């Protein structure tokens, strides 16, 4: 598209947000709805087209919400002189919402690291947020220095469709409900959870949260969520950080406690993988695990290269998986 034939799209959403932001920033005492609707083309066009006031109000509400999600907070206030007449509600944007980061100077090297951190999300759930963040940082005017980072391509993967909704819920501090299917169970259970954090451990996404029914912190593997994530209406107070820290500690203790012993076929792929670059070359090794079923899946991947010695539950689960696959394809 060349400069000459470019035309703005009619009542474009992003333009309306821009005009609204500029207009509100230019009015130290804010603007009321009447002024906004008449001043800004995106609304004025609707007024002139004879749209009813409710639909224009809805448009304004949606725009305010969009701005808030983008990080520009439109405040409303009622001037003391107006008594409680809602028509006199005025809207403004505090200029504090801008100028990030305050008094911070990023070095070119730091910007490159942030760039790499943003690129790790390429094609994964938070890629939009990461690339928008990067453009905001670039606006500070620093050029990145990528010289020390050549040849490195980190990629975060989010295979589970619930990831994005859960990250939103964490961001908004909203509790969520979903169906969760525990291994070995045909039917999923409904769970109601206050989400704290998403952790990726051994390549698996885990939601840590407060389970409202069991009244204790619980972990949920995203791959076992079998429904849409529903946002609950009530807003809850964010739980104290101690709860989360304790949940993380408990998880570490669990992993420390649960040990499996496996036998590796010498010189096999599993043998190289589990012995790693550590230089050791043992055929019987012990591994700590967090979830028996996940470990069984990982071990099944190595097929006959791995024989599970203990615990017996793991031996059974590995076998159960192969039996299921054999009968599914019989």
């Amino acid at each position: 598209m060349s400069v000459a034939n470019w035309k703005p799209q009619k009542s474009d959403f992003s333009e309306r947000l821009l005009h609204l932001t500029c207009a509100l920033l230019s009015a130290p005492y804010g603007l009321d709805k009447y002024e906004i609707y008449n001043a800004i083309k995106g609304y004025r066009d609707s007024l002139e087209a004879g749209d009813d006031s409710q639909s224009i109000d809805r448009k304004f509400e949606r725009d305010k919400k969009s701005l808030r999600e983008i990080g520009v907070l439109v405040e409303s206030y009622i001037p003391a002189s107006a008594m409680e007449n809602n028509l006199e509600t005025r809207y403004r944007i505090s200029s504090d919402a801008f100028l990030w980061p305050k008094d911070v100077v990023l070095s070119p090297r730091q910007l490159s690291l942030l760039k790499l951190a943003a690129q790790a999300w390429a094609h994964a759930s938070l890629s939009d947020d990461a690339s928008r963040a990067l453009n905001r940082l670039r606006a500070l005017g620093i050029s990145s220095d990528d010289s020390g980072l050549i040849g490195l391509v980190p990629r975060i993967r989010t295979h589970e469709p619930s990831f994005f909704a859960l990250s939103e819920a964490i961001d908004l501090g909203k509790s969520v409900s979903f169906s969760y299917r525990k291994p070995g169970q045909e039917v999923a259970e409904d769970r109601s959870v206050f989400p704290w954090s998403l952790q990726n451990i051994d390549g698996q996404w885990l939601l840590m949260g407060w389970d409202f029914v069991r009244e204790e912190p619980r972990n949920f593997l995203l791959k076992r969520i079998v429904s849409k994530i529903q946002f609950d209406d009530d807003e809850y107070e964010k739980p104290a950080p101690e709860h989360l820290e304790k949940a993380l500690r408990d998880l570490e203790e669990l992993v420390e406690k649960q040990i499996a012993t496996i036998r590796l076929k010498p010189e096999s792929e599993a043998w190289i993988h589990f012995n790693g670059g550590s230089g050791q070359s043992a055929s019987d090794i012990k591994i700590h695990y967090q979830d028996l079923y996940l470990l069984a899946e990982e071990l099944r991947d190595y097929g006959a290269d791995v024989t599970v010695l203990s615990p017996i539950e793991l031996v059974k689960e590995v076998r159960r998986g192969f039996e299921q696959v054999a009968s599914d394809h019989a």
Partner: protein
Amino acid sequence: MPKKAFSNGEDRFNFMLAVSGYLLRNQGASTVAEVAQHFDVDADSVVQTLRTLNLAAAKFENRPEDLFYDIDLDELERGVIQFNSAESAPDVPHLTTKQASALAAGLHYLKGIPEFATQDELNDLLELLGAGDSAQISVAIDVKPASDSSNAELIRKAIIDNRQISCEYLNQRGESSERTIDPLTLSLDGQFYYLAGWCHLAEDMRIFRLDRMRKLAILDAVSSRSVKEVEDYADRSYVAANSDIEVVVEVTPEAYRLISETQAIAEPKDQQSATIRATIRVGNLQNLGRLIAKYGGAARVIAPEAAREVVKNYALRMLGEDIQGDLAGSEE
């Protein structure tokens, strides 16, 4: 590679504010090319954005229309940016909590990669991101790479020093070979490290999983390939080979990762609709048994029949059952 700066309205607005903020700080003469390069986008995105900014206006009663930007369009046509703005023109907004979380998670991920950034450097940045009103973000999303990284350190060094490497490599079928590789990019992809490089044995670009390598050594010979070749290879590998076999599979959420690379997965309505049917392509049916069986029932092959047979026989073999004379068995 320059690209379009935005794909939707939010992106577009975000980019407007970013360009506005950038030009507020760099009021001197800039060119479209400079701004495009700075933001790593195509020139059209910059021109389009500046023209949009130039139209930002508000009309209040009893006074002339307020214009918030004044950009010389004739100069813009020549690729030169003459930028003036009203005092109230918006600067770039704070990062949102979610944006900061995304960057913080990326930084956490980088912490697991050795030898290129110090922990202090990354911790400083994490602190900076948490500095605003979002004290909790450092724990909101956390990614810890699991894979053993000892080979990664050596390969990183070889890439930076532009040297070839040699190693013993065990492929998916368990065949071992000696390789000499011009290493190009090291990627930490979810759970595993991968090296993309020119393989002297295959005389082509190849992707290697680091946990299948051993006896890794950096050679004196200089690597002569460019990173560009990795990009070309990535483009090329999106085009399916003629010899690929299409296999119809059915997966429950536990096995979504089998298909998530090849198709977008929407959130399911309920447990029933969470089971998805999809077509995947495999180069060799013999690899399918392993691919499917690991999920222990969460992934099933629907068609073709030959593929079902391969998977069944693989599972039976893993159970130690005798399937002599069978097609799959005979190819071992």
